[in-house]
Protein backbone atom coordinates (compact mmCIF):
# COMPACT_ATOMS: atom_id res chain seq x y z
CA UNK A 1 0.00 0.00 0.00
CA UNK A 2 1.22 3.50 -0.77
CA UNK A 3 1.42 5.97 2.08
CA UNK A 4 -0.99 8.94 1.93
CA UNK A 5 1.98 11.30 1.54
CA UNK A 6 3.13 9.55 -1.60
CA UNK A 7 -0.33 9.85 -3.09
CA UNK A 8 -0.41 13.56 -2.40
CA UNK A 9 3.07 14.11 -3.80
CA UNK A 10 2.36 12.49 -7.15
CA UNK A 11 1.82 15.29 -9.70
CA UNK A 12 -1.85 15.59 -10.62
CA UNK A 13 -1.09 16.72 -14.17
CA UNK A 14 0.16 13.27 -15.12
CA UNK A 15 -3.13 11.65 -14.25
CA UNK A 16 -4.96 14.40 -16.06
CA UNK A 17 -2.80 14.11 -19.17
CA UNK A 18 -2.65 10.31 -19.26
CA UNK A 19 -5.69 9.73 -21.52
CA UNK A 20 -4.62 12.58 -23.79
CA UNK A 21 -1.10 11.19 -24.07
CA UNK A 22 -2.25 7.65 -24.77
CA UNK A 23 -4.65 8.96 -27.41
CA UNK A 24 -1.82 10.97 -28.95
CA UNK A 25 0.41 7.89 -28.97
CA UNK A 26 -2.27 5.85 -30.69
CA UNK A 27 -2.83 8.49 -33.36
CA UNK A 28 0.91 8.78 -33.97
CA UNK A 29 1.23 5.00 -34.07
CA UNK A 30 -1.56 4.72 -36.64
CA UNK A 31 -0.06 7.47 -38.79
CA UNK A 32 3.30 5.74 -38.58
CA UNK A 33 1.75 2.44 -39.71
CA UNK A 34 0.05 4.12 -42.66
CA UNK A 35 3.36 5.76 -43.56
CA UNK A 36 5.20 2.45 -43.39
CA UNK A 37 2.57 0.78 -45.53
CA UNK A 38 2.90 3.40 -48.24
CA UNK A 39 6.69 3.16 -48.07
CA UNK A 40 6.37 -0.57 -48.69
CA UNK A 41 3.94 0.13 -51.56
CA UNK A 42 6.36 2.63 -53.09
CA UNK A 43 9.31 0.24 -52.76
CA UNK A 44 7.19 -2.50 -54.35
CA UNK A 45 6.41 -0.24 -57.32
CA UNK A 46 10.09 0.71 -57.69
CA UNK A 47 11.20 -2.93 -57.55
CA UNK A 48 8.38 -4.20 -59.77
CA UNK A 49 10.27 -4.37 -63.10
CA UNK A 50 13.24 -6.17 -61.51
CA UNK A 51 11.05 -8.43 -59.40
CA UNK A 52 8.92 -9.89 -62.19
CA UNK A 53 11.97 -10.76 -64.28
CA UNK A 54 12.43 -13.99 -62.37
CA UNK A 55 9.85 -16.18 -64.12
CA UNK A 56 10.10 -19.27 -61.87
CA UNK A 57 9.27 -17.34 -58.68
CA UNK A 58 6.37 -15.53 -60.37
CA UNK A 59 4.95 -18.69 -61.91
CA UNK A 60 5.26 -20.49 -58.58
CA UNK A 61 3.27 -17.77 -56.83
CA UNK A 62 0.70 -17.64 -59.65
CA UNK A 63 0.22 -21.36 -59.25
CA UNK A 64 -0.17 -21.15 -55.49
CA UNK A 65 -2.47 -18.13 -55.52
CA UNK A 66 -4.41 -18.94 -58.70
CA UNK A 67 -4.68 -22.68 -59.22
CA UNK A 68 -4.50 -23.29 -55.48
CA UNK A 69 -7.54 -21.11 -54.83
CA UNK A 70 -9.58 -22.35 -57.79
CA UNK A 71 -11.44 -25.23 -56.07
CA UNK A 72 -12.42 -22.95 -53.19
CA UNK A 73 -13.58 -20.21 -55.56
CA UNK A 74 -15.63 -22.68 -57.64
CA UNK A 75 -17.31 -24.18 -54.61
CA UNK A 76 -18.23 -20.83 -53.03
CA UNK A 77 -19.31 -19.30 -56.35
CA UNK A 78 -21.62 -22.21 -57.09
CA UNK A 79 -23.50 -21.58 -53.86
CA UNK A 80 -23.40 -17.80 -54.29
CA UNK A 81 -25.16 -18.22 -57.65
CA UNK A 82 -27.60 -20.68 -56.15
CA UNK A 83 -28.55 -18.41 -53.26
CA UNK A 84 -28.78 -15.40 -55.59
CA UNK A 85 -31.28 -17.38 -57.63
CA UNK A 86 -33.39 -18.35 -54.61
CA UNK A 87 -33.33 -14.83 -53.18
CA UNK A 88 -34.18 -13.15 -56.47
CA UNK A 89 -37.06 -15.55 -57.11
CA UNK A 90 -38.41 -14.91 -53.60
CA UNK A 91 -38.36 -11.15 -54.14
CA UNK A 92 -39.81 -11.41 -57.65
CA UNK A 93 -42.90 -13.34 -56.41
CA UNK A 94 -45.95 -11.99 -58.23
CA UNK A 95 -44.24 -8.64 -59.02
CA UNK A 96 -41.54 -9.30 -61.61
CA UNK A 97 -41.70 -11.86 -64.39
CA UNK A 98 -39.26 -14.76 -64.06
CA UNK A 99 -37.64 -13.96 -67.39
CA UNK A 100 -35.69 -11.26 -65.58
CA UNK A 101 -34.18 -13.83 -63.18
CA UNK A 102 -31.16 -14.45 -65.40
CA UNK A 103 -30.64 -10.70 -65.86
CA UNK A 104 -30.58 -9.95 -62.15
CA UNK A 105 -28.32 -12.86 -61.28
CA UNK A 106 -25.83 -12.19 -64.03
CA UNK A 107 -25.54 -8.48 -63.44
CA UNK A 108 -25.29 -8.73 -59.66
CA UNK A 109 -22.74 -11.53 -59.93
CA UNK A 110 -20.60 -9.84 -62.56
CA UNK A 111 -20.56 -6.37 -61.02
CA UNK A 112 -20.58 -7.17 -57.34
CA UNK A 113 -20.82 -10.69 -55.97
CA UNK A 114 -18.17 -12.33 -58.14
CA UNK A 115 -15.29 -9.91 -57.52
CA UNK A 116 -16.06 -9.20 -53.86
CA UNK A 117 -16.76 -12.73 -52.66
CA UNK A 118 -13.81 -14.11 -54.61
CA UNK A 119 -11.61 -11.46 -53.03
CA UNK A 120 -12.87 -12.24 -49.52
CA UNK A 121 -12.43 -15.99 -49.93
CA UNK A 122 -9.02 -15.69 -51.59
CA UNK A 123 -8.07 -12.97 -49.09
CA UNK A 124 -8.63 -15.39 -46.24
CA UNK A 125 -6.65 -18.13 -47.88
CA UNK A 126 -3.83 -16.27 -49.62
CA UNK A 127 -3.52 -13.29 -47.26
CA UNK A 128 -3.09 -15.65 -44.31
CA UNK A 129 -0.59 -17.85 -46.09
CA UNK A 130 1.53 -14.92 -47.30
CA UNK A 131 1.67 -13.26 -43.90
CA UNK A 132 2.37 -16.55 -42.10
CA UNK A 133 5.14 -17.47 -44.53
CA UNK A 134 6.84 -14.06 -44.51
CA UNK A 135 6.25 -13.74 -40.75
CA UNK A 136 7.97 -17.06 -40.09
CA UNK A 137 10.82 -16.03 -42.37
CA UNK A 138 11.13 -12.80 -40.43
CA UNK A 139 11.23 -14.36 -36.96
CA UNK A 140 13.67 -17.09 -38.05
CA UNK A 141 16.01 -14.41 -39.49
CA UNK A 142 15.55 -15.63 -43.07
CA UNK A 143 14.71 -12.08 -44.19
CA UNK A 144 17.93 -10.87 -42.53
CA UNK A 145 19.76 -13.71 -44.26
CA UNK A 146 18.46 -12.45 -47.63
CA UNK A 147 19.74 -8.99 -46.74
CA UNK A 148 23.17 -10.36 -45.85
CA UNK A 149 23.28 -11.97 -49.30
CA UNK A 150 22.65 -8.43 -50.63
CA UNK A 151 19.23 -9.46 -51.97
CA UNK A 152 16.39 -6.97 -51.68
CA UNK A 153 13.52 -8.82 -49.91
CA UNK A 154 10.94 -6.60 -51.59
CA UNK A 155 12.18 -7.59 -55.03
CA UNK A 156 12.72 -11.23 -54.09
CA UNK A 157 9.66 -11.97 -51.96
CA UNK A 158 7.04 -9.25 -52.23
CA UNK A 159 6.96 -8.33 -55.92
CA UNK A 160 6.30 -11.91 -57.15
CA UNK A 161 3.45 -12.28 -54.65
CA UNK A 162 1.85 -8.94 -55.49
CA UNK A 163 2.27 -9.49 -59.23
CA UNK A 164 0.78 -12.98 -59.01
CA UNK A 165 -2.17 -11.76 -56.94
CA UNK A 166 -3.07 -8.86 -59.25
CA UNK A 167 -2.84 -11.19 -62.25
CA UNK A 168 -4.71 -14.12 -60.74
CA UNK A 169 -7.56 -12.34 -58.95
CA UNK A 170 -9.21 -11.15 -62.22
CA UNK A 171 -8.80 -14.65 -63.66
CA UNK A 172 -10.34 -16.26 -60.59
CA UNK A 173 -13.15 -13.71 -60.82
CA UNK A 174 -13.91 -14.78 -64.40
CA UNK A 175 -14.23 -18.37 -63.18
CA UNK A 176 -16.33 -17.20 -60.27
CA UNK A 177 -18.69 -15.23 -62.59
CA UNK A 178 -19.21 -18.21 -64.87
CA UNK A 179 -19.71 -20.74 -62.07
CA UNK A 180 -22.06 -18.45 -60.14
CA UNK A 181 -24.29 -17.86 -63.17
CA UNK A 182 -24.21 -21.60 -63.75
CA UNK A 183 -25.23 -22.17 -60.12
CA UNK A 184 -28.07 -19.67 -60.55
CA UNK A 185 -29.26 -21.42 -63.69
CA UNK A 186 -29.09 -24.81 -61.98
CA UNK A 187 -31.41 -23.72 -59.18
CA UNK A 188 -33.69 -21.88 -61.62
CA UNK A 189 -33.97 -25.03 -63.68
CA UNK A 190 -34.23 -27.57 -60.85
CA UNK A 191 -36.26 -25.92 -58.14
CA UNK A 192 -37.81 -22.72 -59.55
CA UNK A 193 -39.35 -24.11 -62.72
CA UNK A 194 -37.68 -21.56 -65.00
CA UNK A 195 -36.73 -23.10 -68.34
CA UNK A 196 -33.22 -22.82 -69.75
CA UNK A 197 -34.35 -20.71 -72.71
CA UNK A 198 -36.12 -18.19 -70.46
CA UNK A 199 -33.08 -17.98 -68.15
CA UNK A 200 -30.63 -17.54 -71.03
CA UNK A 201 -32.85 -14.92 -72.62
CA UNK A 202 -32.75 -13.03 -69.33
CA UNK A 203 -28.98 -13.33 -69.13
CA UNK A 204 -28.59 -11.85 -72.61
CA UNK A 205 -31.21 -9.14 -72.20
CA UNK A 206 -29.24 -6.41 -70.51
CA UNK A 207 -25.80 -8.00 -70.55
CA UNK A 208 -23.01 -5.50 -71.07
CA UNK A 209 -19.37 -6.45 -71.48
CA UNK A 210 -18.29 -3.31 -69.67
CA UNK A 211 -19.91 -4.60 -66.45
CA UNK A 212 -17.60 -7.58 -66.60
CA UNK A 213 -14.70 -5.23 -67.22
CA UNK A 214 -15.68 -3.11 -64.21
CA UNK A 215 -15.73 -6.23 -62.06
CA UNK A 216 -12.30 -7.25 -63.29
CA UNK A 217 -10.84 -3.83 -62.48
CA UNK A 218 -12.15 -4.31 -58.95
CA UNK A 219 -10.58 -7.77 -58.79
CA UNK A 220 -7.24 -6.28 -59.86
CA UNK A 221 -7.35 -3.76 -57.00
CA UNK A 222 -8.51 -6.43 -54.53
CA UNK A 223 -5.55 -8.59 -55.58
CA UNK A 224 -3.19 -5.74 -54.72
CA UNK A 225 -4.92 -5.19 -51.36
CA UNK A 226 -4.78 -8.87 -50.35
CA UNK A 227 -1.14 -9.40 -51.27
CA UNK A 228 0.12 -6.10 -49.88
CA UNK A 229 -1.71 -6.59 -46.57
CA UNK A 230 -0.23 -10.10 -46.30
CA UNK A 231 3.27 -8.87 -47.13
CA UNK A 232 3.09 -5.80 -44.90
CA UNK A 233 1.98 -7.64 -41.79
CA UNK A 234 4.29 -10.56 -42.56
CA UNK A 235 7.35 -8.33 -42.91
CA UNK A 236 6.73 -6.49 -39.66
CA UNK A 237 6.18 -9.65 -37.60
CA UNK A 238 8.03 -9.70 -34.32
CA UNK A 239 8.53 -12.32 -31.65
CA UNK A 240 8.02 -16.01 -32.33
CA UNK A 241 4.91 -18.05 -33.00
CA UNK A 242 2.60 -15.61 -31.23
CA UNK A 243 3.78 -12.81 -33.51
CA UNK A 244 3.14 -14.92 -36.59
CA UNK A 245 -0.40 -15.70 -35.40
CA UNK A 246 -1.05 -12.03 -34.73
CA UNK A 247 0.34 -11.01 -38.13
CA UNK A 248 -1.91 -13.53 -39.89
CA UNK A 249 -5.00 -12.32 -38.06
CA UNK A 250 -4.18 -8.68 -38.77
CA UNK A 251 -3.51 -9.37 -42.44
CA UNK A 252 -6.84 -11.14 -42.97
CA UNK A 253 -8.87 -8.61 -40.97
CA UNK A 254 -7.19 -5.64 -42.66
CA UNK A 255 -7.61 -7.06 -46.16
CA UNK A 256 -11.28 -8.02 -45.61
CA UNK A 257 -12.21 -4.60 -44.24
CA UNK A 258 -10.21 -2.75 -46.89
CA UNK A 259 -11.77 -4.82 -49.66
CA UNK A 260 -15.30 -3.87 -48.56
CA UNK A 261 -14.42 -0.19 -48.09
CA UNK A 262 -12.54 -0.05 -51.38
CA UNK A 263 -15.46 -1.81 -53.06
CA UNK A 264 -17.73 1.12 -52.27
CA UNK A 265 -15.32 3.70 -53.63
CA UNK A 266 -14.59 1.60 -56.71
CA UNK A 267 -18.32 1.23 -57.35
CA UNK A 268 -18.70 5.02 -57.15
CA UNK A 269 -15.74 5.51 -59.42
CA UNK A 270 -16.52 2.86 -62.01
CA UNK A 271 -20.33 2.94 -62.14
CA UNK A 272 -20.92 6.66 -61.70
CA UNK A 273 -17.85 8.51 -62.87
CA UNK A 274 -16.51 6.35 -65.69
CA UNK A 275 -19.61 4.52 -66.97
CA UNK A 276 -21.89 7.44 -66.04
CA UNK A 277 -19.82 9.82 -68.14
CA UNK A 278 -19.87 7.39 -71.04
CA UNK A 279 -23.66 7.28 -71.16
Amino acid at each position, binding site marked *: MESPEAQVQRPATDEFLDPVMSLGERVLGTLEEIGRFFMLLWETILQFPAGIRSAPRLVDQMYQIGIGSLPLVILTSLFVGAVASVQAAYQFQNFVPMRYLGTVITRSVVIELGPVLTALVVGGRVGASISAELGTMKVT*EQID*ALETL*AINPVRFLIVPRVAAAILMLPMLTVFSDIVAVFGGWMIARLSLDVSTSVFVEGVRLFFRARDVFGGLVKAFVFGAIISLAGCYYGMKTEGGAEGVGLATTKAVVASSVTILVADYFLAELILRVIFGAAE
Partner: protein
Amino acid sequence: MIEIRDVHKKLGSLEVLQGIDLTIQSGESIVIIGRSGSGKSVLLKHIIGLMLPDSGEILVDGVEITHLSHDERRQVRRRFGMLFQGAALFDSMTVEENVGLGLREHTRMSPEEVLAKVRACLDMVGLSGVEKMRPSSLSGGMKKRAALARAIAVEPEYVLYDEPTTGLDPITADAINELIRGLQQQLRVTSIVVTHDMASAFKVGDRIAMLHDGKVIFQGTPEETRRADDPEVKRFILGEATEAPFPPRHMEIAARRRTGVWRWLGR
Protein backbone atom coordinates in the same frame (compact mmCIF):
# COMPACT_ATOMS: atom_id res chain seq x y z
CA MET B 1 39.48 -3.17 -41.70
CA ILE B 2 36.31 -2.40 -39.78
CA GLU B 3 36.26 0.53 -37.39
CA ILE B 4 33.42 1.00 -34.94
CA ARG B 5 33.42 4.43 -33.34
CA ASP B 6 31.30 5.41 -30.36
CA VAL B 7 28.22 3.47 -31.50
CA HIS B 8 25.08 3.92 -29.45
CA LYS B 9 21.83 2.01 -29.93
CA LYS B 10 18.59 2.03 -28.00
CA LEU B 11 16.01 -0.71 -28.48
CA GLY B 12 12.77 0.41 -26.90
CA SER B 13 13.74 1.96 -23.59
CA LEU B 14 16.86 -0.21 -23.23
CA GLU B 15 20.21 1.25 -24.27
CA VAL B 16 21.87 -1.89 -25.67
CA LEU B 17 25.04 -0.31 -27.06
CA GLN B 18 26.46 2.54 -24.98
CA GLY B 19 29.42 3.79 -26.95
CA ILE B 20 31.19 0.87 -28.58
CA ASP B 21 34.72 1.45 -29.87
CA LEU B 22 36.34 -1.48 -31.63
CA THR B 23 38.73 -1.93 -34.53
CA ILE B 24 38.86 -5.19 -36.46
CA GLN B 25 41.95 -5.75 -38.58
CA SER B 26 41.72 -7.47 -41.95
CA GLY B 27 42.62 -11.14 -41.81
CA GLU B 28 42.26 -11.51 -38.07
CA SER B 29 39.80 -13.63 -36.18
CA ILE B 30 38.12 -11.69 -33.41
CA VAL B 31 35.76 -13.18 -30.87
CA ILE B 32 33.25 -10.97 -29.12
CA ILE B 33 32.15 -12.48 -25.81
CA GLY B 34 29.60 -11.32 -23.29
CA ARG B 35 26.55 -12.43 -21.37
CA SER B 36 23.21 -13.00 -23.05
CA GLY B 37 21.61 -9.64 -23.66
CA SER B 38 24.92 -7.75 -23.54
CA GLY B 39 24.39 -6.57 -27.11
CA LYS B 40 26.74 -8.92 -28.97
CA SER B 41 24.27 -9.91 -31.69
CA VAL B 42 23.06 -6.33 -31.98
CA LEU B 43 26.65 -5.20 -32.55
CA LEU B 44 27.08 -7.88 -35.22
CA LYS B 45 23.94 -6.67 -36.99
CA HIS B 46 25.34 -3.14 -36.94
CA ILE B 47 28.58 -4.27 -38.57
CA ILE B 48 26.72 -5.81 -41.50
CA GLY B 49 24.24 -2.93 -41.68
CA LEU B 50 21.10 -4.86 -40.74
CA MET B 51 20.65 -2.37 -37.90
CA LEU B 52 21.59 1.29 -37.88
CA PRO B 53 23.10 3.01 -34.84
CA ASP B 54 21.39 5.95 -33.14
CA SER B 55 24.76 7.68 -33.17
CA GLY B 56 28.36 6.81 -33.98
CA GLU B 57 30.17 5.59 -37.07
CA ILE B 58 30.97 2.25 -38.65
CA LEU B 59 33.68 2.23 -41.30
CA VAL B 60 34.31 -0.70 -43.60
CA ASP B 61 37.69 -0.20 -45.26
CA GLY B 62 37.33 3.51 -44.73
CA VAL B 63 33.75 3.76 -46.07
CA GLU B 64 31.22 5.01 -43.56
CA ILE B 65 28.22 2.67 -43.99
CA THR B 66 25.60 4.14 -41.69
CA HIS B 67 24.82 7.06 -44.01
CA LEU B 68 24.62 5.03 -47.22
CA SER B 69 21.32 4.36 -49.02
CA HIS B 70 19.75 0.88 -48.83
CA ASP B 71 21.15 -0.08 -52.21
CA GLU B 72 24.63 1.22 -51.49
CA ARG B 73 24.63 -0.64 -48.19
CA ARG B 74 23.63 -3.82 -50.06
CA GLN B 75 26.64 -3.35 -52.31
CA VAL B 76 28.93 -3.15 -49.27
CA ARG B 77 27.20 -6.23 -47.84
CA ARG B 78 28.26 -8.32 -50.82
CA ARG B 79 31.71 -8.42 -49.22
CA PHE B 80 30.20 -10.01 -46.11
CA GLY B 81 28.93 -13.45 -45.27
CA MET B 82 26.98 -14.20 -42.13
CA LEU B 83 26.16 -17.36 -40.22
CA PHE B 84 23.02 -16.88 -38.16
CA GLN B 85 22.39 -18.42 -34.76
CA GLY B 86 19.47 -20.48 -36.08
CA ALA B 87 21.19 -21.02 -39.46
CA ALA B 88 18.31 -19.12 -41.18
CA LEU B 89 18.30 -21.40 -44.21
CA PHE B 90 15.44 -20.67 -46.61
CA ASP B 91 13.08 -23.54 -45.90
CA SER B 92 11.28 -23.28 -49.21
CA MET B 93 14.52 -24.19 -51.03
CA THR B 94 16.80 -27.22 -51.12
CA VAL B 95 20.30 -27.05 -49.61
CA GLU B 96 21.74 -26.63 -53.09
CA GLU B 97 19.42 -23.72 -53.92
CA ASN B 98 20.22 -22.12 -50.57
CA VAL B 99 23.97 -22.26 -51.07
CA GLY B 100 23.78 -21.16 -54.70
CA LEU B 101 21.33 -18.30 -54.19
CA GLY B 102 23.91 -15.52 -53.85
CA LEU B 103 25.77 -16.79 -56.92
CA ARG B 104 22.62 -16.97 -59.04
CA GLU B 105 21.56 -13.48 -57.97
CA HIS B 106 24.87 -11.65 -58.25
CA THR B 107 27.03 -13.42 -60.80
CA ARG B 108 26.65 -14.40 -64.44
CA MET B 109 27.73 -17.98 -63.73
CA SER B 110 25.99 -20.73 -65.71
CA PRO B 111 23.83 -23.21 -63.78
CA GLU B 112 26.61 -25.83 -64.16
CA GLU B 113 29.23 -23.48 -62.75
CA VAL B 114 26.94 -22.58 -59.85
CA LEU B 115 26.38 -26.27 -59.14
CA ALA B 116 30.12 -26.98 -59.18
CA LYS B 117 30.77 -24.07 -56.82
CA VAL B 118 27.95 -25.19 -54.51
CA ARG B 119 29.41 -28.72 -54.38
CA ALA B 120 32.87 -27.31 -53.64
CA CYS B 121 31.51 -25.16 -50.79
CA LEU B 122 29.54 -28.05 -49.31
CA ASP B 123 32.66 -30.21 -49.51
CA MET B 124 34.63 -27.53 -47.73
CA VAL B 125 32.23 -27.65 -44.77
CA GLY B 126 32.18 -31.45 -44.87
CA LEU B 127 28.64 -31.76 -46.11
CA SER B 128 28.03 -33.69 -49.29
CA GLY B 129 25.17 -35.80 -50.53
CA VAL B 130 22.52 -33.51 -49.04
CA GLU B 131 22.20 -31.13 -52.00
CA LYS B 132 18.62 -32.11 -52.76
CA MET B 133 17.42 -32.18 -49.16
CA ARG B 134 15.31 -29.52 -47.51
CA PRO B 135 16.68 -27.70 -44.46
CA SER B 136 13.86 -29.18 -42.33
CA SER B 137 15.33 -32.68 -42.73
CA LEU B 138 18.83 -31.69 -41.59
CA SER B 139 20.18 -31.89 -38.03
CA GLY B 140 21.25 -28.76 -36.13
CA GLY B 141 24.93 -29.19 -36.93
CA MET B 142 24.24 -29.93 -40.60
CA LYS B 143 22.08 -26.81 -40.86
CA LYS B 144 24.92 -24.68 -39.51
CA ARG B 145 27.32 -26.26 -41.97
CA ALA B 146 24.96 -25.64 -44.87
CA ALA B 147 24.44 -22.05 -43.74
CA LEU B 148 28.20 -21.62 -43.52
CA ALA B 149 28.54 -22.97 -47.06
CA ARG B 150 25.96 -20.39 -48.15
CA ALA B 151 27.89 -17.62 -46.41
CA ILE B 152 31.24 -18.50 -48.03
CA ALA B 153 29.86 -19.32 -51.51
CA VAL B 154 29.88 -15.64 -52.49
CA GLU B 155 33.57 -15.42 -51.49
CA PRO B 156 33.22 -12.76 -48.81
CA GLU B 157 36.10 -10.86 -47.25
CA TYR B 158 34.43 -10.80 -43.86
CA VAL B 159 32.53 -13.68 -42.29
CA LEU B 160 30.32 -12.96 -39.29
CA TYR B 161 29.29 -15.76 -36.95
CA ASP B 162 26.38 -15.28 -34.54
CA GLU B 163 26.71 -17.88 -31.77
CA PRO B 164 28.02 -20.60 -34.12
CA THR B 165 28.19 -23.33 -31.46
CA THR B 166 25.07 -22.56 -29.42
CA GLY B 167 22.66 -25.47 -29.25
CA LEU B 168 25.13 -28.02 -30.59
CA ASP B 169 26.61 -31.00 -28.74
CA PRO B 170 30.28 -30.55 -27.67
CA ILE B 171 31.68 -32.69 -30.49
CA THR B 172 29.68 -30.98 -33.24
CA ALA B 173 30.52 -27.62 -31.66
CA ASP B 174 34.21 -28.47 -31.80
CA ALA B 175 33.86 -29.50 -35.44
CA ILE B 176 32.31 -26.10 -36.19
CA ASN B 177 35.18 -24.39 -34.36
CA GLU B 178 37.69 -26.33 -36.44
CA LEU B 179 35.77 -25.32 -39.53
CA ILE B 180 35.87 -21.63 -38.62
CA ARG B 181 39.61 -21.88 -38.00
CA GLY B 182 40.14 -23.87 -41.21
CA LEU B 183 38.15 -21.45 -43.39
CA GLN B 184 39.97 -18.54 -41.83
CA GLN B 185 43.30 -20.03 -42.90
CA GLN B 186 42.18 -21.41 -46.27
CA LEU B 187 40.17 -18.44 -47.52
CA ARG B 188 42.07 -15.71 -45.64
CA VAL B 189 38.86 -14.07 -44.54
CA THR B 190 38.35 -11.82 -41.55
CA SER B 191 36.23 -13.68 -39.00
CA ILE B 192 34.06 -11.96 -36.43
CA VAL B 193 32.60 -14.46 -33.99
CA VAL B 194 30.00 -13.64 -31.36
CA THR B 195 29.71 -16.28 -28.67
CA HIS B 196 29.31 -16.97 -24.98
CA ASP B 197 31.02 -20.34 -25.31
CA MET B 198 34.52 -19.79 -23.86
CA ALA B 199 35.95 -23.03 -25.26
CA SER B 200 34.97 -21.82 -28.71
CA ALA B 201 36.33 -18.32 -28.02
CA PHE B 202 39.77 -19.62 -27.01
CA LYS B 203 39.88 -21.97 -29.94
CA VAL B 204 38.97 -19.65 -32.80
CA GLY B 205 40.07 -16.22 -31.59
CA ASP B 206 43.28 -14.36 -32.41
CA ARG B 207 41.83 -11.66 -30.23
CA ILE B 208 38.97 -11.59 -27.74
CA ALA B 209 36.83 -8.57 -26.89
CA MET B 210 34.35 -8.59 -24.05
CA LEU B 211 31.11 -6.66 -24.11
CA HIS B 212 29.49 -5.70 -20.82
CA ASP B 213 26.66 -3.24 -20.23
CA GLY B 214 26.86 -2.00 -23.79
CA LYS B 215 30.59 -1.26 -23.72
CA VAL B 216 33.79 -3.06 -24.68
CA ILE B 217 35.41 -3.60 -21.28
CA PHE B 218 38.32 -5.76 -22.39
CA GLN B 219 40.36 -6.61 -25.49
CA GLY B 220 43.30 -8.95 -25.77
CA THR B 221 44.75 -12.21 -27.01
CA PRO B 222 43.33 -15.47 -25.60
CA GLU B 223 46.41 -15.66 -23.35
CA GLU B 224 45.83 -12.13 -22.03
CA THR B 225 42.18 -12.96 -21.54
CA ARG B 226 43.04 -15.93 -19.34
CA ARG B 227 45.27 -13.71 -17.22
CA ALA B 228 42.89 -10.74 -17.17
CA ASP B 229 42.44 -8.91 -13.86
CA ASP B 230 39.04 -7.41 -14.65
CA PRO B 231 36.56 -9.07 -12.27
CA GLU B 232 33.80 -9.19 -14.94
CA VAL B 233 36.10 -10.97 -17.42
CA LYS B 234 37.29 -13.40 -14.75
CA ARG B 235 33.77 -14.21 -13.69
CA PHE B 236 32.70 -14.75 -17.29
CA ILE B 237 35.57 -17.11 -18.05
CA LEU B 238 34.97 -19.12 -14.89
CA GLY B 239 31.22 -19.01 -15.34
CA GLU B 240 30.36 -17.62 -11.90
CA ALA B 241 27.11 -15.84 -11.24
CA THR B 242 27.42 -12.48 -9.51
CA GLU B 243 24.11 -12.66 -7.72
CA ALA B 244 21.79 -15.46 -6.69
CA PRO B 245 19.98 -16.62 -9.84
CA PHE B 246 16.59 -16.35 -8.14
CA PRO B 247 15.83 -13.56 -5.73
CA PRO B 248 14.87 -14.86 -2.25
CA ARG B 249 11.26 -13.81 -2.62
CA HIS B 250 10.83 -16.08 -5.65
CA MET B 251 12.38 -18.94 -3.72
CA GLU B 252 9.92 -18.34 -0.94
CA ILE B 253 6.98 -18.44 -3.35
CA ALA B 254 8.34 -21.60 -4.92
CA ALA B 255 8.69 -23.17 -1.48
CA ARG B 256 5.16 -22.21 -0.55
CA ARG B 257 3.80 -23.85 -3.69
CA ARG B 258 5.34 -27.13 -2.57
CA THR B 259 3.14 -27.01 0.51
CA GLY B 260 -0.44 -25.83 -0.07
CA VAL B 261 -2.47 -27.25 -2.89
CA TRP B 262 0.49 -28.73 -4.77
CA ARG B 263 1.37 -31.14 -1.98
CA TRP B 264 -2.25 -32.15 -1.74
CA LEU B 265 -2.33 -32.81 -5.50
CA GLY B 266 0.95 -34.69 -5.28
CA ARG B 267 -0.46 -37.25 -2.83
